[in-house]
């Protein structure tokens, strides 16, 4: 598998700082799945959410792009 940063087959996505190689055909949901199935389960259950570097939410069905940085954050319970 090619490790070039911008092959059409795979792109580089970071989840919580960890680098993944994933097909650009997939979405944020799949990046989480590839990173950690439990993290995805937490997001689906509403116990966590995906955010960008500024803390703004990123939708699970959002498209990926090369170099995208995602962060899984816990939802704070009052």
């Amino acid at each position, binding site marked *: *598998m090619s490790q070039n940063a911008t092959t*059409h*087959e795979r792109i580089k996505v970071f989840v919580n700082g960890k680098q993944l190689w*994933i*097909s*650009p*055909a*997939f979405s*944020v949901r*799949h990046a989480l*799945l*590839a990173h950690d*199935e439990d993290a995805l389960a937490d997001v689906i259950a*509403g116990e966590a*959410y995906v*955010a*960008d*570097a*500024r*803390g*703004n*939410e*990123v*939708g*699970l*069905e*959002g*498209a*990926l*792009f*090369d*170099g*995208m*940085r995602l962060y899984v*954050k816990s*939802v704070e319970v*009052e």
Partner: protein
Amino acid sequence: MRFRFLSLLKKSSVIGAIILALCFTATPRLAGPARVAEAGTETRLASAGSAETEPRAHTGTCDTTLTILHVTDFHGALLSEDKDFATGKPVGGAGVVATYIAAERESSRGPVLVLGGGDMMQGSAVSNLSRGEAVIEFMNEVGFDACAIGNHEFDWGVGVLKARLKQASFPWVSSNIFSGEKAKRAEWILPYAIVEKANLKIGIIGAITEDAPVVINPKSIEGLRFERPEAIVNSIAQQLRREGAKVVVVLAHIGGSQEESGAITGPIADFASKLKGVDAVLGGHSHTVVSGTVNSIPVMISGSNGIRLGVMRLKVDTCNGGSSLVEENVRPTFAESVEADTGVASMVESFRKRFADQLDVKIAVASEPITRGRGESALGNLISDIMRDAVGAVIAYQNSGGIRVDLDKGTITGGAIYRMIPFDNTIVTMYLTGKQVKEALEQGTTERGVLQVSGIRYTYKPEDPPGQRIKSVTLEGGESISPNKLYLVATNDFMANGGDRFTVFKEGKKIRNTQILLRDAVISWMEARKRAGKEIAPPKLDRAERIQ
């Protein structure tokens, strides 16, 4: 941050704004090759878009403030079911979004433009079952001025998309979709539109990511090509200026993100960095929140699912053209802070009721019970066959855990299929070598069960060590699998991304997410059988032979 404006909004003021709008005339015009706006469309655009035909304030004789409201990647989120992550408060819903838009129209100084960023329809039960009709109805009701075509607009095929474009009372735009080999623009897609508000001529150019094909069912875009958009947009922007447009906005279904520093990254940044002569770029596709500038051009992406509304204000020199950014932010649409527009809410409810009955609709008839299981199962074989047939693959794999209940003998309803496949998994295709085809079987074979397959037959011994359990693999016709040959394989997106610890699929080549819901493929296949007068019979159990 809590957003309060309940005291400003009553239903009567919303209706009042709309009635006021109808008293003014404006002359919006659709432009682009081979497309002329029908009179009814122009009238609707005039009435919906001219809420602010008389600017309320001028800083000079040549100044006005243009407000752009942006909703992107709405994905059929007509019902208010989301929560704001920061506060836990309900956000979104068509009625709520409509109210926020109406409030901005009422309070904004100068003309107001309401734009959609693409991927507006596919995604919710009401919208999916109505094939997007409910969302277009909502957008018409609100008075959108234009919308970009996104990749998911193709989910139900070009025929449905054309019907939705015809239903819309506003233009859908995309400048970089071409048909055939001669670089002829697809004649049913407008590259741009020109809207006039308060005597301000605004050019709206559409664009879509050139990588859209990797996330669209190939059958839906047969004969279409998606080119790099920058040069095309620049050329059109020049043309629009020559035609008198004082503002040029690019509606780009292209994604990106924003660093902590504020720097915008990703394809939208690359795209905007190459543009000339445009006043604003509104992105989408990535379901992110972006609010900043690239190349001195304001760039905004307004989240997704109606949980945010993008607001951008530009101070425009109406005499000479040119603009400067006054304000740009992407706000949560808190549902509890406003009274949802009752007209829109009522429309959504009528669609919801219409389709709630669909779950009781008879889809097909099973001649006998079709059961699932961890070993090779009739239901597993059936679903794998349908998956393979849906995308024309040679081989298909389905995990047993994705099939939740059996099919009983007799009537198969929509509800039964939803219970059988409750997840919104899509069909993914890829090329695997023969060696990888066997590896997938190895990863799926344990003493507790096997993968459900179509297109191949194999023998196995689960008691043997992992990696040595598959003894032979052939195509269903008997031909041996060749280790280095590439085979077109279908599976679901869960397994394709390593779900259930299937790592081999992550190594596939030319991975394509067709966006076809497996459940929809099953429903379509069964409906076809019913139309042909055929019952559904359980397939034979002859694909996975356990040897002692």
